[in-house]
């Protein structure tokens, strides 16, 4: 049920974004190239923050795979 809702939401985002605007040309991507526009964020900082939240909250993950576990109690 929730998976289906999540899937519909993701497809809606992809669908809306894919067809509602004019395509951005390669020479218009100067701003998008700036480090703060990187959608993933800075790795060491993101890793620290995710590690802290994983060890203090029940929810985790969502942004990447393969990080491995720890006994962070």
């Amino acid at each position, binding site marked *: 049920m*929730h*998976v289906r809702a*999540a*899937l519909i*939401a*993701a497809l809606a*985002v*992809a669908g809306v*974004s*894919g067809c509602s*605007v004019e*395509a*951005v*040309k*390669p*020479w*218009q*991507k*100067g*701003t*998008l*190239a*700036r*480090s*703060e*526009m*990187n*959608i*993933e*964020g800075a*790795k*060491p*900082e993101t*890793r*620290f*923050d995710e590690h*802290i*939240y994983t060890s*203090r*909250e*029940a*929810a*985790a*993950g*969502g*942004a*990447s*795979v*393969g*990080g*491995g*576990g*720890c*006994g962070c*109690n």
Partner: protein
Amino acid sequence: MQLKAGRDGDDRNDSAGRAILMAALALPGLIGVAGAAHADSAPEQGSISLNYLDYRDWQPGLDRIKVHTPAIDVLAPVAGVWAVQASLVSDIISGASPRYHTAISGASSMSDHRVAEDVGLTRYFPQGTINAGFAHSGENDYQSRAFSFGGSLSTEDKNTTGHAGIGVSNDTINPVNQVVNDAKKHTLELMLGVTQILTQNDIVQADLGHVIEQGYLSDPYKFLDNRPDERSRNTLLLRWNHHFEGSDGTGRFSYRYYTDTWEIRAHTFAFEYVQPFSQGWTVTPSARYYTQSAASFYFDPDYDPNYGPPVPLGYVFGSVSSPDQRLSAFGAATLGLKVEKAVARDVQISFKFEQYEQRCDWRLFGSGSPGLAPLYARVLQLGIVKTW
């Protein structure tokens, strides 16, 4: 006829402009960096970063955990089409942790040293990437090994990129109190997502994650912590970066919905605003709000008068249960401030401060768990990055 001529004229102007701009883009550095935002071309610059994390958390009347973490990260482009990244992290952990709920009395004192390494390799193709990674984390009571594989595929204009990933990890748990020996935990992670460039100033991403954990999932250092041996987790992560031309600042928004088979539902909202100033300064304030419902087998601190804490009223010995604060219903907020300074053309230093507070009465979409103390945390991060 008139219309067609006009269109031809536009095309000519367009191609001339395009040729000049493409020539400009071909200047060293620009194309490689341009790809970085949506990660579809190899980095042209390598980097090495040193980071240091100082973390401590506490509740009223009890200093809990302190962690000091030095870390080193290296990213190196190879032959124009490969990127290798590696990191080494060392956690020095000490403090005390409640054995049930937020009970101060009898809190277990601990000290540990965790060392984690990971290495990843990415191959870049004109329309996509393939990557593989390995990660290891070791403590005296916990060992974890993880492998991951992934890839991405872009449309010809590189405005839409789909990506997928799979990860497996195998953990071995040997708690010092020996409540279990060589206990195993296996995790399978699947991820599917799409990144879309919307405008010159907007990029969005949607990721779906599915994780299956099997094996020993309890906390060996808590009393009456006996969790199911399987948990499936689903996440939907939405992210949006928007650049404000007026201020030259960038807003970074994210929302994550989380649900699992322990009946925990969680929402995470995060926002940060990156504002560059003159002379290489950048200031980034950030805020995060998180809320979760309790696991179905979490029990409140209503103790059996005959047995006393931590035994809950009506407890059936051996049943699935947990008094872990992390599985209760609560809300949490983080406020942060990061300051960065480019001290040379290729060297950047950063300092980040975050204050975290977790309270049961801050829960959204329902009432929080009763009878728990709030949890506070303070996080300091120092970093230096050199690119070459």
